[in-house]
């Protein structure tokens, strides 16, 4: 029975892709969505059966890939990832039904999207090097097609796709090297063989493999400094695709790190995990800072993805550190925190990207400085974004808070310890976590406040219409899940603990307990999210009733009169007088000036008659990625320079090529002799 699920995942996805490419316009998206749902449903069924029974599902055949065959095994860790991917995919494909008319109903897109979902669903199943790499590559290529959807209209999409293609393949090369090294040293290419032999490898080989895997998978997860593609590709991909990339695909980067680090290599020395934590700290701070200063809605969300993956890496690193210094309880809590943060991120970031896609579809822009007032024009999308923003800012009663609380507890109870490097890294991690949290709050107050509240800053925003019903449903489903997981995180915690326990040396099956309040077993830490939310709800009701009771009969009803706001004595105010995203972020940008080094351009033009009168002032500021500007661009330029030099060797003359051949032959002969 379980094997049927696995086959259904693959087959339904494949048929969906074929139908999406073959059917006429009227029916192709509908058919593709229906079959993708079937694929996701089968994935969830398989994952639930694995998580509830604890038995792995395995399927092995040589009928598909020649020479190596296909090996699929689903363990509890993989099952957790399958569920998180399925949930985002179900909501995003529902949303796709309404979004299709915005340029996402072409044959290529309708074929690539189901294939993208299916390959993501199957990556956690892969249990041999060849299977894993094929599925990984399929995932990269199909998402690349999706990023290119709008390329005929937007030059930026083409450039984003180029960055994405290069970075993802560089990452894939690192992963390929790591996995090849692993299988070469262990004499087999299935993960079971590797796991059996990897423990006996020398420390240097294991270290090399881990670092390579960390680089490759870290680039997929958007870890700084390998993140440059992410804000471009996630921003340029159309609505449902960006939700899938940010809510589901980045998860697999983390999955890869856990797979190689914890499962295949079975944990490692302290320096591995210090490296992971460091990567996490840098990513979290860098992502949060750019999210706080960015004024493009989807770019902001993408940087926030980097930030959240940084938090997950911090938790993962902490788990490894505590494991390496003999603190199994806190190691387990940190691992559970990492997976909970990951699941939460999938849900709220999916909701946020779907809402942002709806805004882009309705107004044609992602520039916060041209939005505003959408809460009244698009109430459902507005509330979805509001809920997502509070979740990502880790505010109760939404889901982001529980994950961060668990991470704080894990870090707190890991101290004091005798290992100085652990102590320092934990203190630094908490400080980074806190600053990240503050910056994220600022970023999402800006995104919600400038984008959805106040007055419309452009005609497009003033005339926006609410999104199609399926788009609202898909986004609202994820937003509801944000609240549910915030109130009852215990719904997923048992599954997460089982997954964490299967992820190698961590014995996490009883890290937390309780239904109403979350107890950390063996430690003094209790959180009661539902009671907290209940108390808040009661307090809100009481305050509203009090406010209503003080309303005087002599005053007009409705109780609140709309009036012109205060303008320092000015009679009329225009939307242009409001703060924009750029001005909102200006103080923070100035505080962190040395880090992000924005380029500013002030252009004052005077009247010809007198230079004491100013005709117009143009102020331009751009905060493009500092790493891109100071590292990647010079690197690309130097590659290009060397490429130009190398072209001189080739002038098309046969004589010269013969000479090269002759010289090479002589050298070889000399060396051999």
């Amino acid at each position, binding site marked *: 029975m379980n094997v049927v699920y696995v086959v259904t995942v693959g087959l339904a996805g494949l048929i969906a892709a074929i139908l999406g490419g073959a059917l006429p316009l009227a029916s192709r998206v509908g058919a593709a969505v229906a079959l993708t749902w079937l694929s996701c449903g089968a994935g969830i069924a398989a994952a639930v059966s694995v998580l509830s029974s604890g038995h792995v599902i395995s399927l092995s055949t040589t009928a598909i890939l020649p020479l190596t065959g296909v090996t699929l095994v689903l363990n509890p860790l993989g099952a957790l990832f399958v569920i998180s991917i399925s949930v985002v995919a179900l909501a995003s494909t529902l949303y796709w039904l309404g979004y299709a008319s915005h340029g996402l109903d072409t044959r290529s897109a309708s074929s690539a999207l189901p294939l993208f979902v299916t390959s993501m669903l199957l990556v956690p199943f892969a249990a041999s090097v060849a299977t894993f790499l094929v599925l990984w590559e399929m995932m990269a290529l199909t998402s690349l097609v999706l990023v290119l959807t709008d390329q005929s209209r937007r030059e930026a999409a083409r450039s984003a796709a180029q960055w994405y293609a290069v970075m993802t393949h560089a990452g894939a090369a690192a992963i390929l090297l790591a996995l090849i090294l692993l299988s070469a040293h262990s004499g087999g290419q299935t993960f079971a063989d590797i796991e059996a032999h990897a423990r006996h490898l020398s420390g240097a080989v294991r270290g090399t493999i881990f670092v390579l895997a960390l680089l490759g998978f870290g680039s997929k997860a958007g870890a700084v400094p390998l993140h440059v593609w992410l804000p471009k590709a996630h921003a340029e991909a159309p609505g449902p695709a960006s939700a899938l990339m940010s809510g589901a695909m980045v998860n697999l980067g983390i999955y890869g790190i856990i797979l190689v680090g914890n499962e295949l290599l079975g944990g490692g020395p302290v320096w591995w995990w210090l490296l992971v934590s460091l990567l996490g700290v840098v990513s979290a701070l860098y992502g949060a800072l750019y999210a*706080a200063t960015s004024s493009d809605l989807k770019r902001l969300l993408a940087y926030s993805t980097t930030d959240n993956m940084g938090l997950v890496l911090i938790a993962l690193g902490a788990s490894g550190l505590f494991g390496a210094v003999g603190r199994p309880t806190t190691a387990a809590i940190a691992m559970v925190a990492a997976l909970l943060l990951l699941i939460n991120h999938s849900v709220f970031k999916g909701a946020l990207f779907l809402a942002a896609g709806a805004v882009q579809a309705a107004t044609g822009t992602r520039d916060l400085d041209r939005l505003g*007032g959408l*809460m*009244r024009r698009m109430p459902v999308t*507005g509330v979805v974004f509001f809920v997502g923003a509070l979740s990502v*800012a880790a505010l*109760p009663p939404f889901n982001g*808070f529980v994950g961060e*609380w668990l991470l*704080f507890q894990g870090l707190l109870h890991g*101290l*004091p310890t005798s290992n100085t490097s652990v*102590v320092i890294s934990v*203190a630094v991690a*908490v*400080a980074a976590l*806190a*600053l990240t*949290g*503050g*910056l994220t*709050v600022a970023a999402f*107050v*800006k995104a*919600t*406040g400038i984008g959805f*509240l*106040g007055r419309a800053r452009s005609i497009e925003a003033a005339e926006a219409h609410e999104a199609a019903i399926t788009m609202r449903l898909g986004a609202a489903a994820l937003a509801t899940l944000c609240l549910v997981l915030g109130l009852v995180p215990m719904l997923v915690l048992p599954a997460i603990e089982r997954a964490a326990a299967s992820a190698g040396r961590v014995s996490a099956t009883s890290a937390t307990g309780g239904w109403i309040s979350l107890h950390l077993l063996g430690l*003094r*830490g*209790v959180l*009661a999210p539902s*009671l*907290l939310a209940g*108390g*808040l709800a009661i*307090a*809100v009701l009481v305050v509203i009733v009090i*406010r209503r009771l003080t*309303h005087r009969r002599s*005053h*007009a009803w409705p*109780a*609140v*009169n*709309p*009036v012109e*706001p*205060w303008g*320092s004595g000015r009679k009329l*105010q225009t*939307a242009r*007088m409001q*703060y924009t995203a750029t*001005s*909102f*972020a*200006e*103080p*923070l940008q100035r505080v962190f000036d040395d880090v992000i080094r924005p380029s500013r351009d002030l252009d004052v033009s005077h009247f010809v008659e007198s230079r004491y009168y100013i005709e117009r002032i143009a102020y331009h500021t751009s905060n493009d990625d500092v790493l891109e500007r100071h590292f990647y661009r010079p690197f690309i330029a130097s590659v290009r320079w060397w490429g130009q030099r190398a072209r001189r060797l080739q002038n098309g003359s046969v004589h010269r090529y013969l000479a090269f051949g002759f010289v090479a032959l002589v050298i070889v002969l000399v060396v051999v002799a």
Partner: protein
Amino acid sequence: MNGLTHVLTQVLVALFQVAAVAVGGPLLLGLMRKVRSRLEGRAGAPIHQPLLDLRKLFAKQRMRPRDSSWVFGAGPVVLVATVVAVTAVSPLVSASPPLGQSSDFFAVVFVLLLGSVLLALSALDTGTAFGGMGSSRSMTIGALCEPALLVAILAMAIAARTSNLPALVRVGISHPAVIASPARILALASFLVVILAESGRLPVDNPSTHLELTMIHEAMVLEYSGADLGLIILGESMRLVFLLGLFVNLFVPWGVADRPGVLFVGLGLLALVAKVCAVGATIAVFEVFTAKLRLFRLPELLAGGFVLALLGALTAVVR
């Protein structure tokens, strides 16, 4: 039956704490203003003036900017509700408050943050330059406060092996040496800086300014009127009392009711009032002699607070 009386006592203690903070908040504002005016050579308004102001405000009509949405109305309500919710479960009068087991320091901080965020959003909802200005500045300050605050909590929590608030207060009663430890002192110093910044006192923000361009908090609430403005003033003052109450109980826990009984709760209230008034008056005196810092000098102050907290955390570990 026993269970029922237990629940009833718990509810009563919670209501008592909320009522004490709700009345005490405006009175503390009045006290601090009185101290300031006396030091500045004025007679000043009576201490209960803020309560009279609130009564007047609640009788007035509410207005809202033409283009605002439901967020504008939600801001003041959520602000007050968050303070009420955390007041009910925190060790202010009693060291074992209702649901005390799950009253976590991190959770309290994040619930309060929810109130600030809603207020910042409603300021942006007004669609005016002042609202945006106040919102942007208060979010900047909030973002820079966060590291100091959370690391301060961490420093205190490492020593006590828990971040549970009642436990943090009780450990001070049972082991006074913990209070004198450098970790606790440094952490509380940093906590005080954060309290001043978060509740908009000098040197971060001038609560009695009348010039829009220098406002931070006042700019955010410029559009509120009537009951909404009353709720905001009430919520802000309750938050100040709540934070100061937490601060004094962590620093000088003696007097907090550590066992049930009307007498002990009464004593706890008296002790709390005395301690908070003392700290409030000290802050007021400090404010008379302090000028407001420039907005872009604030990061230095908050970074100072952060460094104190980090030192505290490190001493807690090295101990």
